[in-house]
């Protein structure tokens, strides 16, 4: 306890006063716009992100519910594409036995794209899912009626219905962490810094540098959802 108070006084304050509003003055949502960069060339497919996400956010430990997951793409000579994501990558990947020659192969971490124009928020009938001022789409689990319309509307498969609470769940960018200036759990544990988290509004942040230094692409740009998850080195086969 003592060592914590030295480095994280703000954290302790949060613990002491459970009801503290995020607008108590220490955090101003208006002044942030969170985003994530993902460098495909750095991802080694260890799946520690998917694993940590489940631990940090109490995501059901079943292979049907993920807030983030890792996909492996194998493109063979001749153009055949094989994609897999065994248990979302939580247990890592095994080498596949190939009878054909590989042209190229890579991993792609996926998560909620925290769209600037989120189709899920557009369709939510009650206002149970919403976009915060700092650019994160959240679900109010006490207000969600479980109609699953948002799950249908998400082009990225980023939402699921929690089998216990019967409400929709999704990636929050670890909202409880980022407002305390800590990176999301997936970013925290990524051993190769394939995931870069930061503030798009900041003058200088790892994300701003990432966006300066790379040619970036988002997933399904033609749907005009304007994602806040940016990929460097994205392959045409990734959907």
């Amino acid at each position, binding site marked *: 306890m003592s060592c914590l108070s030295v480095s994280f006084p703000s954290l302790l304050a949060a613990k002491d006063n459970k009801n503290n509003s995020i607008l108590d003055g220490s955090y101003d949502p208006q002044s942030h716009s969170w985003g994530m960069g993902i460098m495909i060339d750095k991802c080694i497919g260890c799946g520690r992100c998917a694993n940590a996400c489940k631990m940090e956010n109490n995501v059901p430990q079943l292979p049907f519910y993920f807030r983030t997951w890792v996909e492996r793409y194998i493109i063979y000579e001749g153009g055949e594409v094989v994609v897999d*994501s065994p248990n979302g990558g939580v247990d890592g990947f095994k080498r596949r036995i190939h009878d054909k020659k590989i042209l190229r192969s890579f991993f792609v971490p996926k998560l909620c794209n925290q769209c600037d124009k989120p189709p899920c928020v557009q369709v939510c*009938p*009650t206002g149970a899912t919403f976009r915060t001022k700092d650019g994160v789409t959240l679900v109010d689990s006490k207000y969600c009626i479980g109609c699953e319309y948002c799950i249908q509307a*998400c082009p990225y*498969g980023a939402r699921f219905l929690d089998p216990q609470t019967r*409400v929709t769940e999704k990636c929050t960018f670890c909202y409880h962490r980022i407002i305390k200036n800590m990176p999301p759990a997936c970013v925290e544990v990524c051993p190769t810094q394939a995931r870069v988290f930061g503030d798009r509004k900041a003058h200088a942040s790892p994300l701003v540098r990432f966006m300066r230094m790379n040619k970036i692409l988002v997933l399904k740009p033609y749907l005009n959802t304007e994602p806040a998850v940016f990929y460097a080195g994205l392959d045409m086969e990734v959907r």
Partner: protein
Amino acid sequence: MEHLAAHLWPILDQIQGYIYPNEVELYWRVLIVIYPYITGLVAGAFILASLVKVFNVKELQPTYRLSMLTALAFLIVAPMPLLFHLGHPERAFEIFLTPNRSSAMAMFGYVYIWYLMAVLLLEIWFDYRKDLILWSQQGKGLKKWIQKLITLFSKDISEKALKFDKAAVKVITIIGIPSAFLLHGYVGFIFGSIKANPWWSSVLMPIVFLFSAMVSGMALVLLLYQILMLSRRKEISMPTLDKLADYLFYTMIVAFSLEALDFIHRIYESEESIKIVSQLISGKLFVSLVVIQLLLGMLIPLFTFASIKLFRFPAELRKLLYFVAALLVQVGIFTTRWNVVIGGQLFSKSFRGLTTYKMSIGGTEGLLVALMFLILPFIILYFLIKILPPWKESGTP
């Protein structure tokens, strides 16, 4: 935790290709198939009833009240499958409290209430008011009091009051037609506006839904009219039946053209999703889409109606053919809803794989509950007919 997802493990082995891990569970199941099917019947039956009042189609007069009651019976049931499907049905009222204006689904509550209260109930009330007053004067016991309650204890059957009733019915019908269009067109919009899903996302979706709704509603009234007349041992009026079949035939031609247009447009544009969609149609949806929806539900009935128009069949044979064709149409429209709702979720939004849907027998979203919701409207209709007999001869005593 394990038991909550027990039904999902076997599906893991049946996935073809790659689907996003969150897509193993198919979220909109058979109850969401039933919902557009039932609202379709409502809209269809109502539009049929409106033909009598607005366009003065004399031949259809015997089916007017039956259509109205059918629409009401199904409309009462329409929101129930939705409620059963919700993760938290007890929170459903939030849709009325804080409707999200950008959500097509949030408007459901208002469209539904408008249609139920302002259109159907009002029209039936004005149409039946005089009869109810007269019946309640003769009747006795519980029925008398129910009928009195329904009239809100009004007694005025003066010429002036009856004239007002007639005018009110006419005005409500005129408002009702766009409302019926709205009710079902908007159900189509719920699916058609999902840009994430290429199987649903189509500007034609609301209009395709609307015409298939009219087809199903007319076919249902045609079936009910024949069954009820037989059960009451009354003569079926052939001009009525022929006219009904006529309208059904013409509506089916429009519905078929729209569906064909949608299909051709998809193939011609041949967008990113075409590969997985053709895989879907030639595989998992072949029987329900090509065999049942297209062949049994559309082409064979169309051919039947066309040949009845071309050749002079005796009345008895016509009755039988109408009956069989209308039955096939019902099956066809139900699978249309199935193919839209379930079909749209069988392929991954990664367009790289297909999942599968296994309907359970029991449970809140199983076959038995689904059947219950399909039977319930007929039970309601039975009681409605008891209290509000739609037959002319039981009209003015």
